[in-house]
């Protein structure tokens, strides 16, 4: 059981990381320019 939970958690980490990476690479570069996005912060 514990091994299954461990596998699930690691799989979840991988899936979430892939989703995050896809969102980042799908976004226009201007959104990743922190100075432009957060000017006046």
């Amino acid at each position: 059981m514990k091994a299954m939970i461990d596998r699930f958690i690691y799989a979840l980490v991988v899936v979430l990381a892939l989703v995050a990476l896809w969102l980042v690479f799908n976004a226009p570069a201007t959104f990743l320019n922190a100075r432009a996005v957060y000017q006046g912060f």
Partner: protein
Amino acid sequence: MMRPAFSSTKQAAAFAFLMLVVLLSPVLAGKKFLPPREEVYTSLGWNGGPYPWIYNQIFEETNDIDIAFIGSSRILHGIDTPYVQAKLSAELGRPAVVRTFAWGGPGFDVLYFITRDLLAHRKVRMLVFYDENPAGNARNAQMPAWFRFGEGSGLLSGLPCREQCIFYFAAIIGMPRNLLDLVRTNLLAPLISDPNYWEQHYGSASIVKFLGTICAELGFNHDLGVHFTDFTPFSPRTPVTPADTEIYSPAGSNDFEFGTEPLPAWQAHFAGVVANLARTNGCKMVMLNIPVLADAPEMVIRERTFWPRIFPGDFWLIGVPPAKLFGGLTDQELHWLFINSGHFNKNGMKYFTPLITPALLQIYEGHD
């Protein structure tokens, strides 16, 4: 041997939880955990656009607006707003209210968000805008501020999934700022103080005095940096008159020529929602063709698409054939009208505005 990324499953679970919270933050925050909409404007300050002026006009002023020029930089540099206001006042026999709401970075999406805020707070009779066409399909860097998922994700329905993900990602990026604005409000940038970025960079008198417009007293800049040449005051003497301004009509003959390439999905989508917004608020919509330097030899008024299909109803499309507008000017004189390849300076603005104003007044008055 490589060190494992996590020293225990608990640590991996904590990381997964953190990732989930970050990725779901726009959904978790909903509308309840978003600061008031005005915080978007106060968070931006003077740098990405003259937002303190726009804030003042949307959230502090309350009277009705006769004509609002709204859009990105070519509106910002192209319209002598006080001139239009004076002409409309004379025509109506009462003080008219004409304002410009303009910023840096084109896109029908930003146009939608600012128009929505404007129409939520002030009655506007006529909106004048232009083709928000970002070069290379670029996006406005401030989208993480403008798009807030909790305010209605239904806005995105109909967009391709990949496009929806771009806006969702923008909402994630904007979330730390929104949460900060929720716990403390932004300080208001002074409306009139030392010259702000726009006045300094473009050598303009106060944006407030010009009712939202930049009146750049600078010469042509060849590299889009800060290397402007000296300003040469110049009033072109050409045969063009206001009668050369054309209002598109499917029945009449005119010089408009429409492209057939489909607009990118997000641009068509947001142009459509702007049209709906204007219709539900009873605004007339006028799309103005503002020429750039490269248009000068064109005999026709070129538009990217057939706009009347996207903006049905109370919609007018106006422009001056560039070859008439700039006819007889030498290359040197032409450059005296612009600060760069896409934007008028004071000379260009003062030359262009009186030519299109009678058509605008005709539309304003003629079709109530």
